[in-house]
């Protein structure tokens, strides 16, 4: 079906168009952009921030649309209006999963907003593995997909290590500086073209780990706080009011499950659908193979991280998936689906008992796989503390931070308690009577 406002990205646009990328995960996206550059795409990550992004989004999109959509629309239009780019030589790109969640409609929302703002001619490229739309000038090939997977892997490694170091670093900013250095280096390496060799990836990961090991840290017990939720709000500092940064400033250690798991989850779900509904029989072996390949790489890299002795590696995807059993069906595949539930359980299992579930206000899938399962999770795991935080353009930061503080206070109290019980079990609290 041809849509009236659909503007394809044509072959000859490739040479002189700038493609703008919304900011969800700075490190990951920078690396992915480097990969795409080697295939001849000139891309730029938008790193704009501030309240005017949401303001612009609200102006051009339905205010009940989800917060990520408002932000992405806002960031795009804000950029086009800034005068920094020639609107006649600019295209936009957005991921589209094609699931039953309304997020699949971001692209339509962006197009509507563009035409309202007078940029109806700007092409919006749908980055999608299922090929929901046809753009003659933008095609994902198998080698491209592989390189993108490596970019995601690198991103996850850097994110994971940096979060494990930051709260403890002796010299503030060392982890950030190292992450920046590696992002640049890897970007250059991947942007140099040619096929990425896996052995080079492994080598790089070893060097990254050893570099992070060298950062001087102090030994102290920081409360670990897991962050799960709707993918954009979970990761994007723009959307979650710099949640990771806030937690670190409060002395806590953020634990953020990686982006690769979400990618594997998308493949895993195809398998589930094939098995459950007996559709797409021909593609089933391909999905199975892809699943095997990517999970194997994830596990190998995880081994490199844990081999250091200083850092926690990653739980295997199979294990994560199995944790959801008894809580939610693996056929819940819209939005973050069962993975969100499984990630909460994985965090608990790996000792991270405080979890923030970040979601846009009124997020549909999260009614099911977030808020819908919390009672059940808490009943079976009474030591887990889950905080559901809603984000939207009007939500006040002070309320969010107040709730986070409460979580941290209690976490510290619990830690003290278990400390006290072991140390001075006989020291009873005194009761004072009030007049």
């Amino acid at each position, binding site marked *: *079906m041809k*849509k*009236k*406002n659909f503007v394809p990205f044509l072959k000859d646009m490739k040479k002189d168009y700038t493609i703008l990328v919304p900011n969800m995960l700075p490190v990951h996206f920078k690396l992915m952009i480097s990969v795409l550059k080697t295939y001849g795409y000139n891309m730029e990550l938008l790193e704009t921030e501030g309240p*005017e992004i949401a303001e612009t989004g*609200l*102006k*051009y999109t*339905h*205010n*009940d649309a989800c917060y990520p959509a408002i932000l992405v629309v806002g960031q795009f239009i804000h950029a086009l209006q800034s005068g920094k780019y020639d609107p006649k030589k600019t295209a936009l790109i957005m991921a589209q999963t*094609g*699931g*039953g969640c*309304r997020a*699949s*409609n971001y692209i*339509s*929302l962006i197009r509507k907003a563009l035409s*309202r703002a007078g940029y109806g001619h700007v092409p919006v490229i749908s980055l999608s593995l299922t090929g929901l739309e046809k753009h003659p000038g933008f095609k994902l090939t198998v080698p491209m997909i592989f390189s993108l997977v490596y970019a995601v892997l690198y991103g996850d490694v850097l994110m994971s290590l940096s979060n494990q170091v930051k709260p403890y670093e002796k010299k503030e900013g060392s982890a950030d500086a190292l992450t920046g250095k590696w992002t640049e280096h890897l970007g250059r390496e991947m942007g140099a073209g040619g096929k990425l060799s896996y052995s080079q990836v492994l080598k790089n990961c070893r060097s990254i780990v050893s570099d992070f090991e060298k950062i001087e840290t102090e030994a102290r017990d920081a409360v670990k706080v897991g962050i799960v939720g709707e993918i954009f709000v979970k990761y994007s500092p723009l959307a979650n009011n710099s949640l990771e940064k806030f937690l670190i400033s409060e002395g806590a250690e953020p634990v953020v499950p990686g982006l690769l798991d979400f990618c594997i989850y998308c493949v895993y779900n195809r398998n589930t659908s094939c098995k*459950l*509904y*007996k559709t797409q029989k021909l593609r089933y072996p391909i999905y199975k193979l892809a699943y095997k390949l990517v999970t194997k790489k994830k596990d190998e890299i995880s081994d490199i991280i844990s081999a250091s002795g200083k850092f926690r590696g990653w739980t295997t995807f199979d294990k994560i998936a199995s944790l959801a059993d008894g809580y939610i*069906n693996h*056929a*819940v*595949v*819209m939005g973050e689906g069962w993975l969100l539930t499984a990630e909460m359980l994985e965090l608990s299992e790996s000792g991270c008992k405080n979890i923030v579930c970040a979601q846009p*206000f*009124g*997020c*549909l*899938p*999260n*009614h*099911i796989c977030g*808020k*819908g399962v*919390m*009672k*059940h999770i808490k009943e079976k795991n*009474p030591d887990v503390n889950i905080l*559901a935080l*809603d984000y939207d*353009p*009007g939500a*006040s*930061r*002070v*309320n969010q931070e*107040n709730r986070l*503080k*409460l979580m941290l*206070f*209690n976490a510290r*109290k619990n830690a003290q308690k278990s400390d006290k019980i072991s140390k001075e079990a006989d020291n009873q*609290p005194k009761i*004072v009577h*009030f*007049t």
Partner: protein
Amino acid sequence: MEKRYSLGIDIGSTTIKLIVTENGNVIYEKYVRHMSRARQMAAKILGEASHLLKDAEFTAAISGSGGMGLAEAAGIPFVQEVYATGEFISRTAPDTKVVIELGGEDAKVIFFDGGIDERMNGTCAGGTGAFIDQMAVLLNMSADEMDKESLKAKEIYPIASRCGVFAKTDIQPLLNQGAAKSDVAMSIYNAVVNQTVAGLIQGRKINGKVMFLGGPLHYCMGLRKCFINTLGLDQNTAIFPEYDRFAVAIGASIFAEGGKKYTYDEFLLKLVNASGREGETHLRLKPLFESEEEYNEFKARHARAHIETKDINSYSGRAYVGIDCGSTTTKLVLISEDKEILYSFYSSNQGNPADIVKEELINIRRLCGDRIKICGSATTGYGEELILNGFHVDFGVVETIAHLTAAKHFRPDVDFIIDIGGQDIKCFKIKDGAVDSIMLNEACSSGCGSFIETFAKSMGHTAEEFAKLGIYAKSPVDLGSRCTVFMNSSVKQAQKDGATVSDISAGLSVSVVKNALYKVIRAATPDDLGKHIVVQGGTFYNDAVLRAFERETGADAVRPDIAGLMGAYGAALYSMKKKGESTLLSHEQLQCFSHTSSVTVCGGCQNHCHITINRFSDGTKYITGNRCSRGEGKSAAEENPNMFEWKRAYFEKLKPKAGKRGKIGLPLALSTYELAPLWHALFTSLGFETEFSPFGSRAIYEKGQLTIPSDTVCYPAKIMHGHVTELIDRGLDKIFYPAATYNVDEHESENHYNCPVVAYYGEVLGGNMEALSKIGLLNPYISLDSPKKLSETLYPCLSEIDKTITKQQVFAAAKEGFKAYEDYRSAVQKEGERVIKFARENGKRIMILSGRPYHIDPEISHGIDKLSASLGFCIVTEDAVSHLSDYQNVNVLNQWTFHARLYRAADYAVHHDDTELVQLVSFGCGVDAITTDEVRAILERGGKHYTQLKIDEITNLGAVKVRLRSLLGALEEEA
């Protein structure tokens, strides 16, 4: 022994509490409102306690949502308030199991049983102290008076308990219809309790002692009573401690013990020097006026939109009365034949508009004497029908028409009107002199006039003073453009950041404007509005609001000097078309006019409307609150065809048939509404006695209310919990609600998904309803692609409950099911054709009352179908006409089966002059953020009106009626 002193300061959203303890005993307490000057006030009340602290060293901590920034800036220990409450409990009453605390803007429930579990209200939840204050203002009472009144209550009305704005929409019409204030007061408390129970307790069992804390629970005895009753507590288990309001402050003082010691001077210095400016997160805006001259120029420009007045005592001749009985205010004007104002009146309703109108009409009749003859009268607004019937007014005018009439007087070429009143925002686009499209604020976004007023009061100013402060603000705070509740928290944060009252006042004005522009009108550019704009409504008297509007839109707007009287003035102008004698009550009739009202429940149908019977002294009777004409004693036969009714009748025929495999129950909600015929045939054929839960009702909802985990999910999903509970209560042990990622493929869209909530709600039921944990929920993941696929995906689940079921049997049953489903679908289409034919033969209008299949539930659509039918429409559903269009040009990813029908139905309306589409949208429906835009675009491209009705738990239809009548009014003008 050395004396240990500790200081606890609790800074909430509106108040400061200060506590000094000596060896753990409270020796000093102070409770004051801080009027958004938290730091200064804290220093001041500390000074009052100086005699105790001057010569001692003491430990100290600050707590409370308003104290976080201050503590940080001052370098004083901070303790989160819920944590502080925990300290208070473990020290004073360790056997407490649950704490319920209501604050100014927070509500919290803390469970101490089996691991501390705290719950605070989310960002979308009123039902707190600020809410009670706002409601008291509505009732024109002090909070104290309201409390006293509540204890006399006899009747409790259902009031939406989600947030303040929703509740207001329920309360206002109750007041306008004359419900007793005592009943309304208690109903408000009941709504607060429901909010706490549904939003925070969420199904967790309450055992043992419950301690109640916070200001509202300290002052409101009615609220206490309500909590005790609802939670089933008694004297021993409900605890109202002496220091309830100080719990957090005491907790803070306990937390501080053993910490750093301060001297009085040192501590005071820290407090005084803590500037609130750092860490500022709110953007500041340009001042509204750069200079005094700019303001004077502005005032002079707007003074030109002026209506002449004439002394009523010197005028003689014909005159006309207009009465605008609004939601919070009553406006009344008398105009001369030359349209000059002879008399005008503007006042708050004080709960009973009929008395006010009586008094004012008597006054007017007296002033008129024999010199002036009232030749016509008209009334408009929420209370239109009450006034029309009570005072025998000549005309009732829809608000939109009244306002348009008045606006044309000031600007004959007007093409856009925006009216911001106390409770609502109305915008009309005018094309060729007629109302083209109407935008009203949805119940969740009423950041309107009364909102500013309430804020003004809470900061210790009158509305006028507050507005004045805004004009001179140096750096207005940017507070965003969301609904009232969100703005409450934004203001709280601005206060924390050290914004002045005048910056907040100006910021609120900008917020109200942004809310109207971006939320209600959703304008992208000034051109979206129009060239000739008239602004009106009491809120625009506020120069700061008007200035913000001009700023934001870049438009030069006309503000008539009677901006607040435009409805009444328009009504008066309208009444000039009266021919013959006016029927308005005479002076004598007015003198003996009286009005009584009583409340009863209509038994005409399953809607069970709460109706108010108004009786007037001349024996006439007027009924409000009814949805259809049955409430007025008319029979069903006189009603227009209504496919909502027809569908319900179809489902009612799906009766259980006894079968060898026992009973199976299906909740009649969400997707069951579409697939009931399929499941009924399938299970009956397999030998199950198939029982559906009854149609939804408030009572059904309440049955499951306690187990809903997400308070922002849509009402059709929430009510699921009640349907399942009902089935369990009936003794059913097999309950079936399948999960289906994909819906039936109608080949009309790019994909055929269900929305996530419809697809997977079974997961939520299973994980949150304790009653289900024993029997389990049959929640197989099914495919509806074909009988074969269905039987394959269904068989594993069925064979588990009955081993004797074979695959072949399920396949045969699935075929039966699909046949029944197809029969149903074609019957729907046939009925649609019949209704359309009937309408065309009888010259009636057709309304496609569209939404989802489950919107036909009487509790979910609240009788909007009947109301529409009573207004003269013949009602069809979207799935009855969607097959009559093959519309392709959808500009969104068209991937949901139910939603694809909407676009085609809209296209059908475009091609038929006698057909209108009205879209029902459940609050919280994320998918409809996409569909509503697209349906609107399809209709407007085709030159049709788009009408959206947002529905939720909300039960009053006043606003819906105004909208539908406005639509009718616009259609009639076009004809």
